[in-house]
């Protein structure tokens, strides 16, 4: 059996007095799609930034492939470059532009090759960011709530797109999300992080493509929500979450709206 592509062992990250990550273990197989769920401040973004090489661990070991790419919640496109130039930026070789064009075609943007980011819709901008990541053939694709800023309909389309791209290119994916349904639709396995500790790892074995009407979907959602710590009381009365900190309550309400 092959060694896992990502191997994190007893990873801790301290910011001053607060412990953002507390003894985290994580392994991701080659080609595996993993979703990481957690509330705001649970440490999920810190873990992703560590895997992306943007943040250094305070303790522990992290093994990741160097061929890794990140798609953030905001597309981070250079406003002064066209979509093709944005995707091709930093690529070497003569065929950089044609590679960029075919990557854009793959995400369904063949009609927007020369567009400036200011003229793109939110979904188009995020698809460009996805093309920029894919064109580099990453072994590990890190997605930091990439659909959170999109409207519901666009988000559903993006789910379909990401699943088909993943099937074709087979990178390992770590998707950070606070949307339980998104995790169930896309992932092979859902992890739950809470207070910097990995509290649950739940395999999702529904057949693909998945949708809400599948048997087992609702049960999985219930299981994941309870792992996140959304109690039955919270689910029945949204007022119960109001005492929480502001940032957290919006997210909890979102989790509840999903349920």
């Amino acid at each position, binding site marked *: 059996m092959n060694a896992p592509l990502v191997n994190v062992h007893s990873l801790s990250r301290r910011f001053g007095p607060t412990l953002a990550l507390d003894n985290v273990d994580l392994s991701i197989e080659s080609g595996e799609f993993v979703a990481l769920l957690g509330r705001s401040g649970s440490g999920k973004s810190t873990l992703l930034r560590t895997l992306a090489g943007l943040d250094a661990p305070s303790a522990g070991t992290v093994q990741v492939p160097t061929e890794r790419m*990140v798609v953030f919640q905001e597309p981070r496109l250079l406003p002064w470059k066209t979509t093709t130039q944005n995707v091709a930026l930093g690529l070497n070789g003569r065929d950089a532009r044609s590679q960029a064009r075919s990557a854009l075609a793959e995400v369904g943007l063949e009609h927007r090759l020369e567009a400036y980011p*200011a003229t793109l819709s939110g979904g188009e901008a995020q698809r460009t960011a996805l093309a920029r990541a894919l064109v580099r053939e990453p072994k590990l694709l890190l997605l930091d709530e990439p659909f959170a800023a999109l409207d519901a309909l666009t988000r559903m389309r993006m789910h379909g797109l990401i699943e088909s791209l993943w099937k074709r290119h087979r990178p390992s994916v770590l998707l950070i999300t606070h949307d339980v349904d998104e995790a169930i639709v896309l992932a092979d396995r859902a992890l739950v992080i809470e207070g910097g500790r990995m509290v649950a790892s739940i395999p999702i074995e529904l057949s693909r493509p998945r949708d809400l009407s599948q048997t087992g979907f609702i049960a999985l959602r219930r299981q994941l929500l309870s792992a996140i710590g959304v109690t039955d009381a919270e689910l029945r009365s949204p007022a119960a979450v109001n005492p929480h900190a502001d940032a957290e309550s919006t997210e909890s309400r979102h989790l509840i709206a999903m349920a």
Partner: protein
Amino acid sequence: MQITAPALLDDRASALSIAPPQKRRSRQWLRALSPLGLLALWQIGCSSGWISDQTLAAPSQVIRSFIELTADGALQHHLLVSLGRVAKGMSIALLVGGSLALLAGLSRTGEYVIDAPMQMLRTLPVLALIPFFIIWFGIGETPKVALVAVAAVFPIYLTLYSGIRGVDPKLVELSKIIGLPRSALIWHVILPGALPTALVGVRYSLGISWLILVAAEQVNASSGIGSMMNDARDFLRIDILVVGLLIYAILGLVVDIFVRWLERRLLSWRPSFINAAA
């Protein structure tokens, strides 16, 4: 837009929304009326003798002098000399100010070494340096070009430096993820990001160079718009003085049009320009 509140409440508001462009044009025409009126008053004042020709030349006289000066090529000669000095001074300012801003903007050490002295020097009144420049560089071309360069260097430095520091750190982080080398990061991410701010500095520098040049050319110069005006003062040629002022006003306008054109070309990716083009 001059839509009054009752008009907005009117249920024909959709018809009103078509009207504004026309309204604006007629208003702009009105704007020209007042200066034209003043010009007419000025002409009437001079020809009727209310304003002595020792105080101010009549517009008709100014136009005549302008034509005379153009006909014998004197004006073109002075203008070319002045333009040359501004061009030289601005080139030095762009080179020096740009390099210093890059050094200070892109490295901590550069910032420590360069920024504090620049912030101190920029508050010096440049005109107070004229005596020094005459002592150091004599009375030839050098002190004039040097004065323009010194005056123009600070706006370029300050705006490019703050533009570089204002580049979105998220874009810099992204560049790190896609493995962009440092030279490409500077060329593709940092400089274009700093450009809108830096162009404001270029515009300001161009304006200030002309301002300084007038003063510089009145010190022992035999050519240039400033020296032409200096001679005119000695011979009490008020009409030529007014022609000089006119030239400065026109140059100001031309410089502004040039920088706007530059912005339109270089910043065509900005939403405001994209909308204007559509």
